[in-house]
């Protein structure tokens, strides 16, 4: 049995790196776009300093639209877009397109809900000293929500690891792809268990690191 695993090691290693690659790209996009989106959802809410019903509604609608499409369907639905963007629909880079699209609204909602936990009085005190909206976002909301942002990023990363397996089924590569090729098409349980164990370890490590960092940055 060990030989089977050793024989597959190079492939497993590549699959692991592919998974890391697509999850990392999607996470980066989640931070770049999902985070500002989440903050936008929060500050345009009723009673907040950039209250704007229209912006809030439109942003909320777009996010709900994406979130209501099951990921497997989103994958297929986005194939033309991926083709247009990268000229291919195969490989981890192609898979990271749909993963990113799914990660943006997911993370945005998490950011929004953790921002809601900020004491409104703190924001009010900032308004009372005459701070501009941008200063309030940069120097009050972001630092206050930092532990929540990190916890949210952990949750997003773990969900994305799950999603990446689905992306694997339509040619995205990664650990999920490996598990399905060997475990499902070739009935090779050894390889399937190995990939499951790798995934379990990966998720544990991500969760542990996420919790650790969140604890360190929290000053409460």
């Amino acid at each position: 049995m060990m030989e089977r695993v050793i024989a597959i090691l190079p492939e497993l290693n590549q699959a692991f790196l592919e998974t890391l690659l697509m999850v990392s790209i999607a996470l980066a996009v989640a931070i770049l776009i999902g985070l500002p989106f989440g903050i936008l959802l929060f500050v345009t809410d009723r009673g907040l300093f950039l209250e704007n019903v229209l912006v809030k509604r439109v942003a909320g609608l777009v996010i709900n639209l994406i979130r209501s499409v099951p990921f497997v369907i989103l994958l297929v639905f986005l194939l033309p877009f991926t083709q247009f963007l990268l000229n291919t629909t195969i490989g981890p880079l192609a898979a990271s397109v749909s993963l990113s699209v799914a990660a943006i609204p997911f993370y945005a909602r998490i950011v929004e809900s953790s921002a809601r936990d900020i004491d409104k009085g703190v924001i009010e005190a900032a308004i009372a000293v005459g701070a501009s909206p941008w200063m309030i976002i940069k120097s009050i909301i972001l630092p206050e929500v930092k532990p929540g942002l990190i916890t949210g990023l952990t949750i997003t990363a773990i969900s994305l690891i799950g999603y990446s397996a689905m992306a694997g089924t339509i040619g995205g590569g990664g650990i999920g792809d490996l598990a399905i090729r060997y475990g499902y098409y070739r009935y090779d349980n050894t390889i399937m268990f190995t990939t499951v164990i790798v995934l379990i370890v990966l998720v544990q490590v991500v969760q542990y690191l996420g919790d650790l960092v969140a604890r360190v940055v929290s000053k409460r």
Partner: protein
Amino acid sequence: MIKLENISKKYNSKGKQIIGVDDVTLTVEAGEVFGIVGYSGAGKSTLLRCINLLEKPTSGKVFVDGVNLHELSPKDLRKARQSIGMIFQGFHLVSSKTVFENVAFALRAAGADKKQIKLRVEELLALVGLEDRRDQYPAQLSGGQKQRVSIARALANQPKILLCDEATSALDPGTTKSILSLLKKINRELGLTIVVITHEMEVVKEICSRCAVMQDGKVVEQGSTYDIFSDPANPLTVSFIQTVLNFDLPKELLEEINGKLVRLQFKGSIAAEAVVSDMLQAFPIRGNILHGKVEYIQSKPLGIFIMELNGNEAEVNKAIAYLRDKVSKVEVLDDGTRNRHLA
């Protein structure tokens, strides 16, 4: 310094209109400490928040230092807010920032540079007595220390006005005293105009030169703190005053009284004992002081005595007439002819 003209604030909640502040007109003079008292829900907090437009009044005008705040652009309003400091019951410090950074934030909001900020923050922390806490986080501070940080933050941009929203209500009595004396010091040394809202009459007695009493969104009474304490007109004011000048006599004692029970109030410098002893010498009656207290309101004495007067009724009445002439207020609580009960 602050002029509120016909301020009203109405909310719509589930289709029903709720009136927070109802047509309030107030003037706060430069350099004074003005108190707004009322039970929770009276609208005092909403009124206070109208002064820096944290709450936009539904109607009415807010003038601060002669400027109509409604006419300012968002940018100018932010500038104006920098000259109106505010502190809160819940302190509202940024938990992820140190004491230094919390105070520095206000200066950065006003566009100060790094060097200025460092100097000013250190100056402010010295003023509020927290030099040794500059690198600690709010979670490591006590309530009183947190309020000191928020006072430093509020004073950062050298405001002319300080608004205090129940600033001592979450503090224990000892800490309350120290925060109040800090506010007094700020008022005296920096010449700041301070508006305090509170439900504690003790706070008003301690620091306010004038005050207003609010109920159901309206100001029901206003005047100098001394006048409010010595001659409250509104029943609500009377009940607030009683929290400080409490003169409930035990029931058992009242049962034993067979003379007339009078309540004497002395204002200012009238020496209470002299009047009482003169009265006792002038009339053949016996007097018995059951309760007495001299409160210093804004360092002016306000004395209240409850006496039992015994003797020939005609003489007692003459003595009461004599007292009415000499002291600021005489109230006959029990005339001794009916069954005993306090008026």
